[in-house]
């Protein structure tokens, strides 16, 4: 019998005292909207304290419960296992600001463990769980939140580095409201927030994603979302201040102890049960390759389903949890160079965590944001359609789940036994969560907004790939197009071909086209827009025009930007043109 099956009463949370305020109404339609006078209520400190207490008692109960099972892990083994993972981490993670403190703590645990009685081991375990939760918990300050959201629009760069705001402001900064375009099923998202508790799941390419989505949530009139941000985002003091006050809690991805992951997951679960909307990046980390993430991390996602079952057990009047996928679409990606480098070096091997990249370098961020102004480029946030924790579509009007033929589904039946009692069955629930993951991945593809840089990069990459088809990909990345370039007329013709294929797919609701150059369908204008973007910001221009030819100066970045259009079978569309070239 799985552990969860024993625990309905234990895992039953207390009834909530807090409900998010009704969301503000107001149409967006791509226009920036004014700021709310009142401070949207994010998860407040008292509520956080309650969540922490709940998480501690649940995780501790679970530890005790499983230790009593015949093949369960005895408490001292559990402590030892956690100790082992933490000491291993501390060997490598010497830069951690709390390194010395951590070492002292775990040394203490180690010296005590050998001669501890059972109650003492239990106390030690409580201490460990307490330490993990304390670190995870953030600190919400409503006043600061108000300041943050007012300053945020003009201070996007400030968020990302520790430069003096005065110096930054003197150089002309973009207003985020002009820079971020919000579109898609915004009404659906608002409605889901009224009918139940929302988990917003955006695509993840950049450290800019957090402030951008944070601002979008604010601009849509929604309360601040709870989300787990990587510790590296807190290492920058200004960023840290804002992150903690935008509803973020801290996640240390270097910590591999299973107990730590349990604590994290339970924190998300409890906050959902308390009615707090959550923000998960289901990719887990920034996508390195530039592709739209299709393999998602399901660990955190499963807390949505667990919270739903707990809500049923405590008979909440709004038990439903809704997952709303959304895509963040950039013409240029701040950290593209580091990300693709990492991807190419480590493809097929274990990923590592980038601690130092463009997003920690003040000058890069400044250049990046100034380009946003100069090019009038927009970051598009596209809100997708809601789904339930089982991966079914949800009717945005009623909040009811529907099958592929639009027939409504009683989703309680998925998790109740024949007598109608809700049950936790972790193995079953993993399968449901995998289904939800697939549905999110499909929504990502569907709500991807294609921009000019990606379209042109894709066309040129495929062209070069075909021209040098005898080379393997890594060789092509090194040698590039050997200085011969590609004639503009040829490229325009091919861009048009890819555009037509994209347009066809957009008609069939398989993706979206960006409202500017791409939607115009004017291939020359698409190419010109891409050239303008690619000529700026990156260390070397991705593409440059010389005379009537276009040259690629950075094959890795070309590959990176082209990858966003993988997964739509576009590759075959260019084949007829390649054939006629050979003839």
């Amino acid at each position, binding site marked *: 019998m799985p552990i969860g099956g024993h625990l309905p009463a234990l895992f039953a949370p207390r009834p909530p005292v807090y409900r998010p305020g009704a969301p503000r109404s107001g149409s967006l339609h791509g226009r920036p909207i004014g700021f709310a006078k009142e401070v949207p209520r994010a998860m407040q400190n008292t509520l956080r304290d309650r969540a922490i207490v709940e998480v501690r008692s649940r995780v501790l109960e679970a530890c005790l419960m499983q230790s009593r099972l015949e093949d369960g892990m005895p408490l001292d083994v559990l402590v030892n296992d956690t100790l082992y993972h933490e000491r291993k981490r501390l060997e490598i993670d010497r830069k951690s600001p709390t390194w010395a403190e951590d070492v002292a703590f775990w040394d203490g645990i180690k010296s005590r463990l050998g001669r501890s009685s059972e109650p003492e081991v239990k106390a030690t375990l409580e201490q460990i769980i307490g330490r993990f939760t304390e670190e995870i918990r953030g600190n919400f300050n409503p006043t600061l939140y108000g300041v943050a959201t007012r300053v945020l629009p003009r201070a996007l760069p400030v968020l990302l580095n520790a430069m003096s705001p005065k110096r930054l402001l003197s150089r002309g900064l973009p207003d985020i409201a002009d820079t971020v375009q919000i579109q898609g099923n915004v009404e659906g998202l608002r409605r889901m927030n009224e009918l139940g508790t929302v988990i917003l799941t955006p695509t993840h390419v950049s450290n800019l994603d957090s402030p951008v989505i944070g601002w979008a949530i604010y601009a849509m009139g929604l309360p601040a979302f709870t989300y787990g941000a990587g510790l590296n985002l807190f290492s920058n003091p200004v960023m840290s201040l804002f992150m903690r006050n935008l509803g973020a809690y801290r996640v240390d991805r270097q910590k591999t102890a299973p107990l730590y992951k349990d604590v994290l997951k339970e924190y998300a679960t409890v906050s959902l049960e308390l009615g707090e909307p959550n923000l998960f990046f289901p990719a887990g980390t920034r996508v390195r390759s530039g592709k739209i993430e299709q393999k998602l991390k399901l660990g955190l996602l499963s807390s949505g389903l667990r919270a739903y079952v707990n809500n049923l057990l405590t008979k909440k009047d709004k038990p439903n949890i809704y997952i709303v996928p959304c895509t963040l679409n950039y013409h240029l990606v701040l950290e593209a160079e580091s990300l693709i480098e990492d991807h190419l070096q480590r493809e097929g091997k274990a990923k590592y965590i980038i601690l130092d990249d463009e997003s920690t370098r003040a000058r890069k961020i400044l250049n990046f944001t100034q380009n946003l102004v100069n090019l009038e480029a927009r970051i598009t946030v596209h809100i997708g359609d809601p789904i339930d924790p089982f991966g079914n579509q949800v009717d945005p009007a009623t909040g009811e789940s529907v099958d592929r033929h639009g027939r409504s*589904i009683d989703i309680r039946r998925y998790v109740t036994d024949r007598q109608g009692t809700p049950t936790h069955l972790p193995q079953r629930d993993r399968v449901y969560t995998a289904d939800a993951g697939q549905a999110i991945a499909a929504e990502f593809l569907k709500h991807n907004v294609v921009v000019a840089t990606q379209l042109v990069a894709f066309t040129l990459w495929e062209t070069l790939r075909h021209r040098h088809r005898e080379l393997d990909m890594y060789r092509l990345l090194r040698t590039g197009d050997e200085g011969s370039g590609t004639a503009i007329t040829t490229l325009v013709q091919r861009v048009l071909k890819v555009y037509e294929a994209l347009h066809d797919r957009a008609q069939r609701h398989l993706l979206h086209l960006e409202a500017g150059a791409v939607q115009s369908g004017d291939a020359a204008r698409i190419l010109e827009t891409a050239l303008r973007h690619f000529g700026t910001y990156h260390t070397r221009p991705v593409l440059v025009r010389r005379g009537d030819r276009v040259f690629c100066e950075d094959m890795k970045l070309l590959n990176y930007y082209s990858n966003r259009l993988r997964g739509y079978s576009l590759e075959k569309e260019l084949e007829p043109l390649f054939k006629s070239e050979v003839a």
Partner: protein
Amino acid sequence: MAPSTPPASLGNGKAATAVVLGGGSWGTALAHLMAVAGVKVQLWMRSDDRVAEINEQHTNSRYLKDKKIHERVVATSDLRSAASFAETIIVAIPSANFRAVAFELGEVVSGDQILLSATKGFEAENLTRMSQILREETCCRKIGAISGPNLADEVMDNHPTATVIASPMEEVIEKAGLLLAGPTLRVYGNHDLVGVEVMGALKNIIAIAAGVCAGMGYGQNSLAMLLTRGLTEISRFGEALGADKLTALGLAGLGDLVATCASPLSRNNTLGRKLASGMTLTQAQADSIKVAEGVNTTFAATKHASRLGVDMPITRAVHALLFEEMKPIDVLTRLMSRANRYEHTEVPIDAPRMVDGSVVDTALSVAARARGW
């Protein structure tokens, strides 16, 4: 006929129940099998005449001649009442009608019910598996498949055998296992739903080839070659679709392949024999009321093999036989005259290969070959 046993229970004191959709030979045999083990079974089919025959005479003469069906099997043509009769529903409908029935089923089931496909085949267009159709057409998620060396006639005669219940969800395997396991059937579980379904479907192609082989009068050597190389190519196809390699060597792979290819009872095998005797596909099909799933599967697999980058020489040969009006002897000649290859890598024996690791070794090997050494 096995002696009557009291109704089984699933541990909660209530009698165990199950529903089977499809009154063909396999659907009927499954219903009978569970009934023998004590489960109350409703068997759904469209034909009222056959419903009456099963309920009154306890036979299904169209598919199973005079074999007696257990009295605990109750036939019905009312899908709604059948669907509410039990938690677990086994769907044994030919692949061509599978989606239509699944859609109707979608109107009457709820999310707590378990659906199992007992059909071995694909939808040709997108290579859709039967469990995927159940997922697409209903709200159910507790979905799995049954497959293995289970020839319907032998099951009806209570010959001992084993079957695989595949599902990513252990709850499905556990509950279906309780219903199906009995004195003549052992149940094995497998998480690899893709592999179990793909093997179950693809082995029918090899079964047709085996029938042709036997029909041409060839003996055990030829059959063994066909089975072994056949298993290799279908397992490669399965892997390309995400199946586990080991599934091909299990009951749903090798087990089912051996049963289907060795038995003259198998419809795909029978079809192969007819083709060997000179009949065309149309003539051979007109000769039998039972659907040979292998025909449909050969078409689907051939269509998708090149997209998946899988070389399937035997499947191509069967395709040529079925749809391109090639003569068996010509197909055989073509197969036998393929380049000789290494068994695991498929590299032609006489093709020059790079020597890994050392440029000098590579240069020397190439030079040696050039001189004919």
